C-alpha cells in the first residue's frame, strides 16, 4: 500500500476540522461542517474547493496540436489560444482512459487537467503513444496546486478579494496572469453546474488564495462530498462511475465531445461503429417516487429482469427528489419508461428521466 498523498492545503483542512477521506490516492476533505450547507453555498453564493489532487500535464512543441488531436476525442484544431476543450482519451476498443480538460495556452503549448486517480496512467498513456511526434510531455502535478471557486458570487469574490481581472473571461476559456512574481492560470470552468473559476499556481499562491477567500467569510470551504452532489445534479459524469475503462462516451451520452470528422484518433473506429449500430446500454437518469435513496451499484429492474446498475445516486439536495444515474439496457432507456430499483429488501418504482436533475447556471 502506497502512502496516502497530501495536497498543499492539507493542513488547512485539518485546522478547519474537516472530515477527511481518501480520494484518488489523496487524503481529502469530504465536508467541513455540513455537506448540505456547503452544497447550498455553491448554488446560491460562493464556495471554494481544494482540487489540488487533480493532475496537470503540459505538452509543448511543434507537433503538440497534431498529437493531442490524435489521442483526444474533441477537435482542438485551429482554436484560439485561451480556449478550453472537454473530452476523453480512449482505448482502441472505445472505452475511456480518462476524461479531461485541454487548455490551449499557445499554438504549441497545451495544458491537460486529468483526474487524480488517473494521473500516472494518463501520463504513461500519453508518453507511450507519442513516438515520432516532435514534442515534450511534462507531468507538473507536483508543482501545481489548484482551487475551484464556484457559485453565482465567485466572479465578484475573485475580482474584489484577489484583485484578479476575470470578469471578461468567457465560459471555457483561460488566461495566464502575472501575480506575486509567478504566472498563474485562471479559467472559467468548474464541476458544479454553477458559474465559477479554477485557479492553478504554486503551492504558496494557492495557500494565499485560500487564506484570502476563506478569511473573508464570503467564500465557504467546500468538501468533495458536495462537489459530487453538485456535479451529479447537473448530470456531469465522474470517472469510475459514469465513465470507465469499459464505458464509452457514447454509452455515457457524451457523444457531442467525440468528433468523428476531425481525422484519425485512438478509439475512432470503435466509436464510429457504435454510433452507426446504436449502443446496447446507456447512462440514463431515473427519478424515484419514494424518498429511498438509490446508491451506486444498486440493481435496476424492468419487468422482473435486471437491466443494469446505478452509477451515482442521491436524494438531491437542490430538489429534494431521490434520483440517480444508471447504466442500463438501451431497450428500457426511453424517457418515461417505468423501472424498479432494488434498495435493501424492497423494490422502488422509478421513471426514466433526463439525467440533468437541476438546470445549469453558467455565465456564457
Amino acid at each position: 500500500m502506497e502512502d496516502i498523498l497530501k495536497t498543499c492545503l492539507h493542513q488547512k483542512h485539518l485546522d478547519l476540522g474537516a472530515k477527511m477521506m481518501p480520494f484518488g490516492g489523496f487524503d481529502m476533505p469530504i465536508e467541513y461542517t455540513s455537506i448540505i450547507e456547503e452544497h447550498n453555498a455553491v448554488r446560491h453564493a460562493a464556495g471554494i474547493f481544494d482540487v489540488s489532487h487533480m493532475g496537470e500535464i503540459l505538452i509543448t512543441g511543434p507537433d503538440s496540436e497534431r498529437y493531442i488531436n490524435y489521442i483526444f476525442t474533441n477537435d482542438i484544431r485551429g482554436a484560439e489560444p485561451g480556449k478550453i476543450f472537454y473530452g476523453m482519451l480512449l482505448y482502441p476498443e472505445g472505452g475511456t482512459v480518462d476524461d479531461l480538460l485541454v487548455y490551449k495556452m499557445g499554438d504549441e503549448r497545451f495544458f491537460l487537467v486529468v483526474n487524480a486517480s488517473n494521473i500516472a496512467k494518463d501520463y504513461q498513456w500519453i508518453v507511450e503513444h507519442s513516438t515520432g511526434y516532435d514534442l515534450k510531455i511534462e507531468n507538473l502535478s507536483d508543482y501545481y496546486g489548484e482551487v475551484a471557486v464556484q457559485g453565482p458570487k465567485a466572479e465578484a469574490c475573485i475580482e474584489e478579494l484577489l484583485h484578479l481581472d476575470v470578469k471578461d473571461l468567457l465560459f471555457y476559456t483561460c488566461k495566464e496572469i502575472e501575480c506575486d512574481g509567478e504566472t498563474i492560470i485562471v479559467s472559467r470552468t468548474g464541476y458544479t453546474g454553477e458559474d465559477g473559476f479554477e485557479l492553478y499556481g504554486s503551492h504558496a499562491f494557492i495557500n494565499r488564495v485560500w487564506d484570502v477567500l476563506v478569511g473573508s467569510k464570503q467564500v465557504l470551504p467546500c468538501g468533495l462530498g458536495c462537489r459530487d452532489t453538485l456535479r451529479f445534479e447537473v448530470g456531469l459524469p465522474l470517472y469510475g462511475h459514469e465513465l470507465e475503462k469499459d464505458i464509452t462516451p457514447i454509452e455515457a451520452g457524451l457523444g457531442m465531445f467525440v468528433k468523428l470528422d476531425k481525422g484519425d484518433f485512438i478509439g475512432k473506429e470503435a466509436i464510429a461503429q457504435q454510433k452507426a449500430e446504436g449502443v446496447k446500454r446507456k447512462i440514463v437518469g431515473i427519478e424515484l417516487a419514494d424518498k429511498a435513496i438509490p446508491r451506486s451499484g444498486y440493481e435496476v429492474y424492468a419487468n422482473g429482469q435486471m437491466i443494469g446498475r446505478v452509477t451515482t445516486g442521491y436524494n438531491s439536495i437542490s430538489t429534494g427528489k431521490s434520483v440517480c444515474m444508471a447504466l442500463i439496457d438501451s431497450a428500457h432507456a426511453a424517457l418515461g419508461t417505468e423501472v424498479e430499483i432494488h434498495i435493501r429488501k424492497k423494490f422502488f418504482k422509478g421513471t426514466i428521466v433526463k439525467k440533468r436533475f437541476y438546470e445549469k447556471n453558467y455565465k456564457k
Partner: protein
Amino acid sequence: MSTVLDGLYYSESHEWLKVEGEFGYIGITDYAQHQLGSVVYVDLPEVDDEVSQGEEFGAVESVKAASDLLSPISGTVVEINEALEDKPELLNEDAFNNWICKVKINDTAELDNLMDAEDYKAICE
C-alpha cells in the same frame, strides 16, 4: 463529546433501547447521528414486522451513505415514528427524543447482551 443518557440500554452498533414494561422504544444514539452527518432518509420498519436482536430492521441514510439499523432486541414492531418520514433531520436535532420504532419485547433475558450508559460511553471515546 456525544451525549449518552442514563437508564437506557445500548448496542455496539449504536442503537439505544428504552424499556417500558413489556415494550421497548428503539432509536440511534447521539454518537451515531454525529458520525452519520445530516440524515436525509429513514427506512422505517412496518408495524407487525418481527425483529431479531442484532439483525437489520431498517436503515438511516445521510447524503453520502446508508447505514443499517440493527435491532437491540427481538420482538414485534407495534408502532413506528411516522414523523421521521417527513422530518428525518429530527434524528440530528435530538437522537434520544426521537425514537424510530416501538416493539413488544419477546424475551427480557436478551437485555443482558446490551450495555448500560457507562459501558457505552467507553466505546464512544
